[in-house]
């Protein structure tokens, strides 16, 4: 017998496709945090990020049969979410949602003053990210905030390293003004 926590992603996908819907919650537990992290940095609002993550998981469930590599279902779900985030940032409805402080879910350091300063920097960076194209923002967030390598991002987002470097470079150029303000 394989315990739930020991099941690999591929086994979970197989179980879900064999009508064991409840097994899908294991994928939600495994990847909910990572997906939320990315969505939060992409859209800025924790409420919108939560909605997009939920939408990504439901879409993933509906399309699970099209997941070609069940052992990499996490990356597959990430791509679904990344596309939802980009669609959202292009959508007119985003203008109706005020940017909320992304600091509210973090700031667990021992120094409240330092936490507040970091939170302010984060909020200002996120406000600046709003002015980037969705592709530039996605590349910048994955590279510099989520700390992935260009090779990892390229494999995940099905694009080239050269294209990613150019997007990140342009994003950094756009953010240099902010950098001088914060210096």
């Amino acid at each position, binding site marked *: 017998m394989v315990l739930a926590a020991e099941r690999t992603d591929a086994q979970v996908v197989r179980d879900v496709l064999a009508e064991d819907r409840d097994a899908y919650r294991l994928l939600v537990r495994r990847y*909910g945090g990572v997906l*939320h992290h990315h969505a939060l940095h992409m859209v800025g609002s924790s409420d919108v990020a939560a909605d997009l*993550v939920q939408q990504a998981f439901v879409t993933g469930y*509906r399309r699970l*049969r*099209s997941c070609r590599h069940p052992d990499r279902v996490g990356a597959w779900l990430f791509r679904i979410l990344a*596309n939802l985030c980009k669609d959202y940032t292009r959508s007119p409805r985003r203008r109706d949602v005020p940017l909320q402080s992304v600091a509210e879910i973090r700031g667990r350091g021992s120094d409240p003053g330092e936490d507040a300063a970091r939170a302010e920097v984060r909020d200002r960076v996120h406000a600046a990210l709003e002015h980037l194209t969705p592709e530039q923002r996605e590349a910048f967030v994955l590279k510099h905030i989520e700390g992935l390598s260009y090779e990892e991002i390229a494999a995940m987002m099905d694009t080239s390293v050269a294209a990613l470097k150019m997007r990140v470079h342009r994003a950094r150029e756009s953010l240099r003004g902010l950098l001088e303000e*914060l210096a």
Partner: protein
Amino acid sequence: MNDDLRRYLDGEAPFESLPESARAEAEAWERVLAACSMGQSEIEAPTGLEGRVMAEIATLPERSVPARLVEWLLRPRAVHVSPLTAGLAAATIAALILVPAMVREDAMPLPTQPDVGAVVYVEFRLEAPGARSVAVGGDFDEWDGSHSLVDPDEDGVWTGRIAIEPGLHRYMFLIDGSNWVTDPTAERYADDGFGNRNAVLAVTTPTA
């Protein structure tokens, strides 16, 4: 931004390689990025996410019995047969085919064997103005969705030819890498078991 700083920020050069003039900006970037990033231990799923996802999934219709039956029939599976059993089966089939032909005086020539491995080029077409990319995926490519269609004249009509083996195939179009849509012009459709319809395509070998 000079190339040295760019390489440093891309993780391709150490801090020590930076000229003195670029070090202040590099340190400023580090401070800002450190404030933005957070450790893995701080990453949490949204509150109540699991419950909401599972509740929404529970509202989706279950896959119908015919859909499961079709999938069971179409799913490739390994069959283990002993050499003896396989030999007997082959002999039985050969006898069923050959004996009636031999006893008939006007027996017609045996039909030629189907061209195993033959493919047919099928042209897919989708009107999708505004799409950034369109691809097609189906059971012929394990729903990979990597067969891209093209719209060279940018009139919103995406086309592409794909080699597919003869048989009954289910497929959908993939728009912008994430949105699966059903072919609105398909001749047949089949429930995918998740509340959507797959287009169904019958590919036959052209007769000579």
